[in-house]
C-alpha cells in the first residue's frame, strides 16, 4: 500500500507469478519491509497479540463446534461431553473460554495505549474509529458466546441484556420479541446466537484487515507521538518487529497458559456450572468482567431508557475522541496535565468495573453515579479544556534524535 512495487523476482517461477499475482511483492512491502518507527515500546506489541488471539479463538472455536449441540436440552451436556469425553476437549474449551478474557485484557491495554500516546489524532482518526467498531463487534461476539453453554448466567445474562432493548420507546417490546425469536429467551435465541457467534469472528477478521490497511497509510504512531521524518527514524518491520512482537506474544501466551492450566475457572462465574433454569433467578446476575464498567454505567442511571443510552454512549463516545481532544501534541509523555488525568481516568474505569461487580445497594450506588459522571466528564470537559489550557513540554526534533538522546546516559559509564 505504499506505491508501485520495486520488487524484482529472481527465480523463473517468481517472475511468472509476479506477472500474474504479485502476492510476494505485496507481502514484502506491506509486512516485511514496512517502515516502522524504531522507538516502539512493548505497549505497542498488543496489536500483534490481538491478531494472534483472534486466530486462536477461531481455531479453538471451529473445533469446539464439531462437538457442541446448540439446543436448549443438550447444550449444557454437550459442553460437559467436550470436557469429559473429547480428546483434549477440556483444553480446547478452557483455551476458548479464557481466550475471550485474554482478548479483552489485550484490547484494553491496546486502547489505553492508543489513548495515552494520542494514536487517535490526525491522520489516524479512521484507524481509531475502525478500532472502536472492532471493539463493539468483539463485545457482541463474546456476549453471544457466553450464552452458548446454557448455564444459569448464560441464560439470565442473555435475558437481562436483550431486555435492555425493551427500553426503546414504542417498539421496544416488538424489538425484544424479534431478537428472542419468541416471547422469552429460548431455543430460537440460542440458535441465532450460535449462528451469529460463528459469523461475527469472520466479520471481525475483515474489519481487522481494514484496521491494518488504515494503519499502513499513515504508518505507526510511536511513544514520542511525532511523525516519521525520514529513513533514519524507521526500521523494516521484519526482522525487527517480527522478533519483538514474537517475544511479546510468547510472554503473553505464558500468562494465558497459567490461567488455562492452573486457574481455568477463575475469571468465570461458578453459577454458570448450573444448567439454565428459567424458573430460578440467580442471586446476583452480573456479566463477565470485561463488561462490568459499562454495566456500572447502565445501573448508575435510575431510568432504564436513559441508562441504556448512557451505556451505549459510553462506548460510542470513543468515536468522537479524535475531535474531543483539542491538543495537537499526540504523546502523553509531553503533556504533563493530560498525563495526570489519563491515569485518573484509567483508575475510574477499573473502579467502575469493581462497582459493576457489586450489588446495586448502599454506597455502591452513589459511587457508581459519581464515577459514571466522571467517565463522561473526562471526555466532554477535561479533554477539550486540557488541550486548550496546557502548555506541552518541548518535543524532540525527530524520533531518531529522541532515541539517541535516551541512549547516551546509558552508554556513558561504559565509555
Amino acid at each position, binding site marked *: 500500500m505504499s506505491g508501485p512495487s520495486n520488487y524484482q523476482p529472481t527465480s523463473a517461477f517468481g517472475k511468472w507469478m509476479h506477472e500474474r499475482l504479485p502476492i510476494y511483492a505485496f507481502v514484502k512491502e506491506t509486512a516485511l519491509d514496512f517502515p516502522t518507527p*524504531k522507538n516502539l515500546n512493548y505497549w505497542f506489541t498488543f496489536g500483534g497479540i490481538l491478531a494472534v488471539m483472534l486466530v486462536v479463538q477461531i481455531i479453538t472455536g471451529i473445533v469446539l463446534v464439531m462437538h457442541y449441540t446448540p439446543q436448549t436440552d443438550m447444550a449444557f*451436556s454437550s459442553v*460437559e461431553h467436550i*470436557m*469429559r469425553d473429547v480428546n483434549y476437549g*477440556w*483444553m480446547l474449551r*478452557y483455551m476458548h473460554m479464557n481466550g475471550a478474557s485474554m482478548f479483552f485484557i489485550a484490547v484494553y491495554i491496546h486502547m489505553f495505549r492508543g489513548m495515552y500516546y494520542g494514536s487517535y489524532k490526525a491522520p489516524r482518526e479512521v484507524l481509531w474509529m475502525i478500532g472502536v467498531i472492532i471493539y463493539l463487534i468483539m463485545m457482541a461476539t463474546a456476549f453471544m458466546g457466553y450464552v452458548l453453554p446454557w448455564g444459569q448466567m448464560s441464560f439470565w445474562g442473555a435475558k437481562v441484556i436483550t431486555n435492555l432493548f425493551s427500553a426503546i420507546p414504542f417498539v421496544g417490546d416488538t424489538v425484544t420479541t424479534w431478537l428472542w425469536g419468541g416471547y422469552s429467551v429460548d431455543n430460537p435465541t440460542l440458535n441465532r446466537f450460535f449462528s451469529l457467534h460463528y459469523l461475527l469472528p469472520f466479520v471481525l477478521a475483515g474489519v481487522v484487515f481494514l484496521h491494518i490497511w488504515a494503519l499502513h497509510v499513515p504508518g505507526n504512531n510511536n511513544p514520542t507521538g511525532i511523525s516519521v521524518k525520514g529513513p533514519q527514524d524507521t*526500521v523494516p518491520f521484519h*526482522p*525487527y518487529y517480527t*522478533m*519483538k512482537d*514474537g*517475544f511479546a506474544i*510468547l*510472554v503473553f*501466551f*505464558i500468562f494465558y*497458559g*497459567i490461567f*488455562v*492450566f*492452573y*486457574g*481455568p*475457572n*477463575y475469571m468465570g462465574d*461458578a*453459577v454458570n*456450572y*448450573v444448567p439454565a433454569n428459567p424458573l430460578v433467578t440467580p*442471586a446476583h446476575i452480573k456479566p463477565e468482567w470485561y463488561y462490568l464498567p459499562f454495566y456500572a454505567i447502565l445501573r448508575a442511571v435510575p431510568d432504564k431508557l436513559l441508562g441504556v443510552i448512557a451505556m451505549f454512549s459510553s462506548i460510542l463516545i470513543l468515536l468522537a475522541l479524535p475531535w474531543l481532544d483539542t491538543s495537537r501534541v499526540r504523546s502523553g509523555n509531553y503533556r*504533563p*496535565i493530560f*498525563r*495526570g*488525568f489519563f*491515569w*485518573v481516568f484509567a*483508575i*475510574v474505569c477499573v*473502579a467502575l468495573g*469493581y*462497582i459493576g*461487580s*457489586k*450489588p446495586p445497594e*448502599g*454506597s*455502591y450506588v452513589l*459511587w457508581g453515579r459519581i*464515577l459514571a459522571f466522571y467517565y463522561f466528564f473526562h471526555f466532554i470537559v477535561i479533554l477539550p479544556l486540557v488541550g486548550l489550557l496546557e502548555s506541552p513540554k518541548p518535543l524532540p526534533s525527530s524520533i531518531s534524535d529522541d*532515541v*539517541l538522546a535516551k*541512549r547516551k546516559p546509558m552508554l556513558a559509564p561504559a565509555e
Partner: protein
Amino acid sequence: MKKKLSLLVAGLVAFAVPAKAAEEGTPAKGISYSFEGPFGTFDRAQLQRGYKVYKEVCSGCHSMKYVAFRNLSDKGGPAFTVEQTKALAATFTVKDGPDKDGNMFDRPGLPSDYFPSPFPNPEAAAAANGGAIPPDLSLITKAREGWHGTFNQLVNGIGGPQYVYSLITGYSEPDEALKKEQPEGKYYNKYFASGHWISMPPPLADGQVTFDDGAPNTLDDMARDVSAYLAWTAEPKMEERKQTGFMVLIYLAVLAGLMYFVKKRVWSDLH
C-alpha cells in the same frame, strides 16, 4: 500533584465502599486437599472412599448424570480396576429398553452406563423432598464458591470442595432469635449459599459408612472424602490438565527465552 490526586481517588474507592459481609453465607472452612497447587493430584484411596460415601448416602437423593461408571477406572481418577468398575456398576439398577415386545425393563448397570438418577423427573424429586430438588452433584464443586473476593479467589482458589465440606459438617442449632423464624422442614446451616435454611437434613453422622481400607470414618473424615470425590467428578481431567500445563509452560518459557536473545541480537546491529 497529579500522582497525589490519583492516589487519593484510588484510596477513596478502596475505603469508602464498605465491605459487605453478608454477601452470601459464611466463608467456607479453609481445609486443604491433596489436589491443590500446580502439582497436586487426587488421593486415589480418598476418591474410592468418597465414592463409597456418595453411593451409600448421597445417591439416595442426588443424581450424578454427567459421570459414567467407566470413568471410575479412568486415568487421574479413583483408579478402580476395570473388574472393580464392572462390579460397582452392577450394584446399580438401570432402566433399559424397549425390548422386542416394546417393554422397558430393569437390568444391572454396565460400565458404559451413566449413573442412574434416583428420581425419574424433577417433579418427583421435589415431591419426595419437601418441595426442594436435590441438585445434581456431577459439577457441584465447580458450581459453588467457598468464599468471595477477586484477590482472595486468585490466591486461595474458588473453594468449591471446601464449600461442600463445610456444608456437610456445618449443621448447628440456630440461636433463639433465629429459631423463631425456622421454616417447617428446614435445617439451619450457616454455610448454605442461599440463606441459612436448607431442606437437606444433616446427611452424614460419625461412623455411618464403613471403609474397606479401615480409614477413620468420623463425620469430618467422610466429609473430606466425599468432597474430594466430588472435586474429581467436577473436573475429571484435572491431573492431565496440570501435567500438560507444566510441559506447555516450560516449552513456552524456553522458546520465549530464545526469542528474547534473537530479538536482542537483531536489534543490536541498529545505531
